[in-house]
């Protein structure tokens, strides 16, 4: 039952993307768009990837709030990494360490891992269940991540998915 709902949501989402891309709203194009959407949904069902992880969750308020927080983090660390790259002494202190991810679902963990990678200064190198190996450009960036604020925020967003 819930699979049907997910398939329906995916159909709506894909058709919306088609309408946004297309820009030609003649009957023929709309029919082709609907046919394309249905074909893609059919293929997606065949590969059995219709589940809750495929949901377009970007627009829920708490997720949106997380994006803004992440954007701010990215800006801050960008400025930091930029300063280090440009200073003549190249003041970096690379470090490899592990963090524990508190998320329950795969999508949650992937969100956390990709958020870590998106922020310059830290890159997720390896994921073993809930243990992430992270490479940090500086000890400071590592310490920042180890404080675990991002982990907590992703955890609280995860429930919305």
């Amino acid at each position, binding site marked *: 039952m819930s699979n049907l709902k997910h398939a329906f949501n995916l159909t709506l989402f*894909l058709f919306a993307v*088609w309408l946004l891309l297309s820009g030609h709203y003649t009957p023929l194009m709309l029919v082709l768009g609907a046919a394309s959407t249905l074909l*893609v949904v059919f*293929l*997606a069902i*065949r*590969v059995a990837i219709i589940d809750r992880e495929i949901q377009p969750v970007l627009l829920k308020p708490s997720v949106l709030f997380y994006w803004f927080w992440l954007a701010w983090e990215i800006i801050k660390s960008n400025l930091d990494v930029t300063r280090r790259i440009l200073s003549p002494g190249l003041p970096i202190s690379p470090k490899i360490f592990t963090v524990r991810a508190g998320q329950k679902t795969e999508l949650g963990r992937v969100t956390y891992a990709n958020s870590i990678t998106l922020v310059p200064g830290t890159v997720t190198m390896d*994921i073993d269940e809930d243990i992430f190996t992270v490479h940090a450009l500086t000890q400071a960036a590592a310490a920042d991540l180890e404080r675990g604020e991002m982990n907590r925020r992703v955890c609280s967003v995860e429930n919305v998915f």
Partner: protein
Amino acid sequence: MEEHLINNVLLGLLMMTGFAIVRMRSLLAVTMLTSIYSLLSASLFVVLDAVDVALTEAAIGAGISTILMLATVALTTDEEKAPRHKPLLPLFVVVATGAALIYGTLDMPHYGDPMAPIHLHVAPTYLHVTPEEIGVPNVVTSVLASFRGYDTLGEVTVIFTAGAGVLALLGYRTRRRNSQNPEIRKMVVLRVITKLFFPLILLFALYVQFHGDYGPGGGFQAGVIFATGFILYALAYGLGNVQRIIPYRTLRIMMVAGVLIYIGVGIESMLLGGKFLEYRILADDPVTGQHLGIMLIELGVGITVAAVILIIYYGFVSRQHQEPPEDT
């Protein structure tokens, strides 16, 4: 002026890449560099206003051919063999040919010269006739699918032959489901992101397919993007899982069906009393007929291209990580 500057810089970068490709012995590095070469030349096509070519170069040059070259290198060796003889003679031949070619360009019209022969012969007719008779905003599509319909049919046949050739040479073997593969189970990020993107890539391919009339795009590019979607799925979930959705059988049918759709449109127009591939006969209104014909043959092209690329990919990859075939 500005475009000239960018052109020249891009040409310079292309030359640097070319020299580096010649110098390198590692075939892997060469593959990476050819991918960059494709990206750069696609940017060059954009500056030259050749949008459709740029799209094709992006999809085929930077995407599919890199993947297929890698698959080839994976089946052979990573290192180019050291040449057995001094490269003096080949160098001479190349320099002489290059000099002859450059000498030849001295007589060519300047870039963008409106009086160049190429702009005086058929091009003006295409440009004038397209809006009235075909009614398609993208002239490239009307030239490709209508004015030069025979030509394109030939190209599709070439692609079909390539697919048939790969099938004949490499044969095919269907992989059992390999979702238990521990290596694949590990790549969580790739799997989740693939889940998100697989439907989007396919939808985008269909968008490119059906909007070829209005902007850059059409069957060739769409077929490649469609196949790329499945290749991404194969990379994340293993070849066996993709073959479960699109088995060889389906691909072979698709490969033939595409060409048959194309030829079928031609025959249909003959049955209706026109010439082979004379689309305007297909509907009461000639413009609608042209539209319909172009759409159908583009669809045929897209189906064949997607099927052939997947056949080639399956053929190459199913040979890897596997025991050598019985005959060795």
